[in-house]
Each structure stands twice: as structure tokens, then as C-alpha cells.
């Protein structure tokens, strides 16, 4: 059984990961759509920036978030004036998790959009459906497998987020101490090994479940395409 502190860390991690995916999904859908369907100027630069969180050391991403979204940061000071604070808050952990999971989310959705049979959209167009109706009635339902798989992968990435989170929002019990940070903390205190083992098992189960679900969703997508 988990101690109350460990359970709190697990609950926080689940909440942060889930909210990060929900919040970033509309942006990911929009960006994936642009990259899949539109001629965007500076596409290469956008793609390079998009993948930056995957290639940069997470600590650097966390530091960049602190510089941008800290209380005195370029964006953070304006947001603070409006009462929105990220630094050292659980909302900051959500932001860090969202940034780190975003590339996976966009990539999965974009592949789903790219694989869609565009002739169906053309057919919908001849039936009088405008762009938004086509998006919500044809594109979204037919890409749902890829979108869900992307959500699961981004969730798993967010659930395991450590470097960017600890450098951006630190390690505050009950506020920003997510499961990976709790494991790191327990590793550095005497007698923490049992807790480390318990949380490691939890992390292992969640990550495995997520990748399994993503694989099953991806597989279902492939089968459906093969049937077409």
C-alpha cells in the first residue's frame, strides 16, 4: 500500500498528465491540421520547433519555461497581472507536461490526418458540407484511433515528466511533487527504498498500460485501413 504522501504524488501525476493532454489537444489538432493540409510558410522551422522538447535536455526546457513563464518572465509577468501564475504551482507542472507531450500528440494526429482518404472529404463537400462540418463529421471520427493513440502517448510522456517539471516548478509536496519527483526524493533519503520500489511498480504499470492501449488503438487503425 502507498503512504498518503506517495498516494498524493500519484494522484497529482495522474491529474497533471490528464489535464495537460486535455488542454493541449485543441492546439495539437489545429497544428496537425495545418501541417497535414495547408501550405504553411516556414514549415521546416515550425516542425523543428515542434520537436525541440523531444531533443532538448528536459532541464533546458524547464529553464526556458521559467524564463518565459516565471513571475518575472517575458510572458509570466503579464499573466501574473491577470492572476495566472505557473511558477511553483501545479498548473506549471501541467504546462511543463503539456510542452513535453505536445510533439507526440501532434505527430500521432498528423499521421492520422495524412492517412485519411481525402476522397471522402471531397464527397462530403459535394453534399454541401463546409470545412467545419467536414472536420467534425468526417475527419475527426475517422482519425479517432490516431488521435486517441496520441493522447495516450502524450499522457504517458506527461506522467513520466521529470526534468522540465523540477526545474520549472521545483519539488513542493502536494503542489508540484509528481510521482517521478517523489521517487527521486525518496531515493535521496535514508530508508526511502521501500517507497521507491512501490512507486516504481506504479509507474511501471501506468506506463505499460498506456503503451499497450496506444499499440492496440494503432493496431485497430491499421486493420481498419487494411479493410478499406
Amino acid at each position, binding site marked *: 500500500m502507498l503512504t498518503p504522501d506517495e498516494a498524493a504524488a500519484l494522484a497529482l501525476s495522474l491529474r497533471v498528465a490528464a489535464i495537460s493532454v486535455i488542454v493541449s489537444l485543441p492546439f495539437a489538432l489545429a497544428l496537425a491540421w495545418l501541417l497535414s493540409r495547408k501550405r504553411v510558410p516556414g514549415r521546416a522551422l515550425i516542425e523543428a520547433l515542434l520537436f525541440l522538447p523531444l531533443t532538448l535536455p528536459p532541464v533546458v526546457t524547464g529553464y526556458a519555461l521559467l524564463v518565459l513563464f516565471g513571475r518575472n518572465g517575458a510572458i509570466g509577468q503579464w499573466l501574473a497581472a491577470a492572476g495566472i501564475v505557473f511558477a511553483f504551482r501545479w498548473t506549471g507542472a501541467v504546462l511543463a507536461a503539456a510542452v513535453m507531450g505536445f510533439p507526440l500528440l501532434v505527430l500521432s494526429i498528423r499521421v492520422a490526418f495524412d492517412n485519411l482518404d481525402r*476522397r471522402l472529404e*471531397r464527397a462530403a463537400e*459535394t*453534399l*454541401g458540407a463546409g470545412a467545419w462540418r467536414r472536420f467534425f463529421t468526417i475527419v475527426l471520427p*475517422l482519425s479517432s484511433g490516431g488521435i486517441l493513440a496520441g493522447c495516450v502517448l502524450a499522457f504517458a510522456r506527461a506522467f513520466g515528466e521529470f526534468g522540465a517539471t523540477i526545474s520549472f516548478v521545483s519539488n513542493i509536496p502536494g503542489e508540484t511533487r509528481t510521482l517521478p519527483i517523489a521517487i527521486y526524493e525518496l531515493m535521496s533519503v535514508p530508508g526511502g527504498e521501500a517507497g521507491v520500489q512501490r512507486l516504481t511498480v506504479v509507474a511501471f504499470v501506468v506506463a505499460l498500460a498506456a503503451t499497450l492501449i496506444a499499440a492496440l488503438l494503432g493496431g485497430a487503425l491499421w486493420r*481498419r485501413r487494411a*479493410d478499406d
Partner: protein
Amino acid sequence: MIEVALRHAYRDVAVEAAFRTPARVLALFGDSGAGKTTVLNAIAGLLTPSAGRIVLDGTVLFDHDAGICLPVARRQIGYVFQDGRLFPHLSVRANLLYGARARGRDGADFDRIVDLLDLGALLARMPAQLSGGERQRVAIGRALLSAPRILLLDEPLTGLHREARDQVLDHLVRLKLELGLAMLLVSHQPAEAIALADEVVLMQSGAVLDQLPIDRFAQRQLGR
């Protein structure tokens, strides 16, 4: 009345076609590569010709010189594709009502169209559970329920086995007689054109060869 004058070049294929006709049902007839589908797609707005003008019952759909090009969704055309293109995630009923909903109509003709095309027993099925002929009948019903001013049919019988082909053709003839709807059929089968059309535009290698009433077309085919 449909009036088409267009020029379209894509890679090394050039299509130049001009015809006007008051016929309710017109067939564009010719071998593959004659440019028939290009003309159909230009009318539907699925491609933009490099030059020309397309007018349907007094409405200008496209006029290159005047800079007019109505968006596909606003042309009020019904398009039946060769491969049906039913939405795989929607039931037959939802497929049929798709265009009616998109155009904000209540689908008042639903029962009549379902009846005319004998679709009653298929409504709850998914497209993957339909035969080729059934799929094409649903595609025709779906296009009709979007209340088009003209039904464009791109070789709708190609790929069907003989029995299904005859059945779909019978239904099309029935629609012509009962609804009096304008249709433009693309075909390379003389029998289809003769069964359905009032007039034929003959196309070859991207150009219009001739335009003739159906009885003369039929005589010419018999004389071959």
C-alpha cells in the same frame, strides 16, 4: 440547361470541351482518357479549369474571365462517384441524411427516395455490409437527398457485376421518370447512355467530337 465551355491542362493531358444543352439527361460518352471526368469535376468544382465558363440553369458556377468560382459546397450538385464513397463510419441512414443535414434541410423526401431506390431494408446497415450495387444505390440516394439541381454520375455502374448493373440502371431510369431530375452521366457503355440519356456528347482525347440526340446515337451504335 447546362452550358459548358472549358479548357483545362493537367501535366501532359489537355481537355478542351464546349457544349450546351437543354436536355434533362445528358451522357458524356467516350473511352477512358477522353476527358469526361475532368468535365464532370469542373462542373462540380472539384477542379478549377484554366479557362472557360460553366452555367447551370442560369447560375454561373464558374467564369474565369469574370473571376467567378463558386465553392463546391455551394454549387448544389449531387455527385455519384464511381466508387460510391460512402462514409464508412456512418450507417446507411446517416449516410443518406448527410447532405440533407449539411444543407439544413429536414429530409422530407427521405421516405420517397428510400422507396424509389429500395433502400428500406438497408437503413441500419454499415457500408461495409453492403454489396457493390447496394452501395451505389445508397450513394445515389445520398446525393439526391442533398436536393441537387443536377445529379452528376461518374461511371456509376463500372465495377458492378451484370445483375447489379442492370438493377442500378433500372433505378436510375425510375428516378428520371418519377423525379424529372437533370442528370449528367459519364459512361463508356453505349447501353447505359441509351437507357438513360436524352442526348449524348461524344468525347475523344480531351475534345468534343459530336453532340447528338439519343436516337441518332443509338442508330449509330447499331450501325457499327
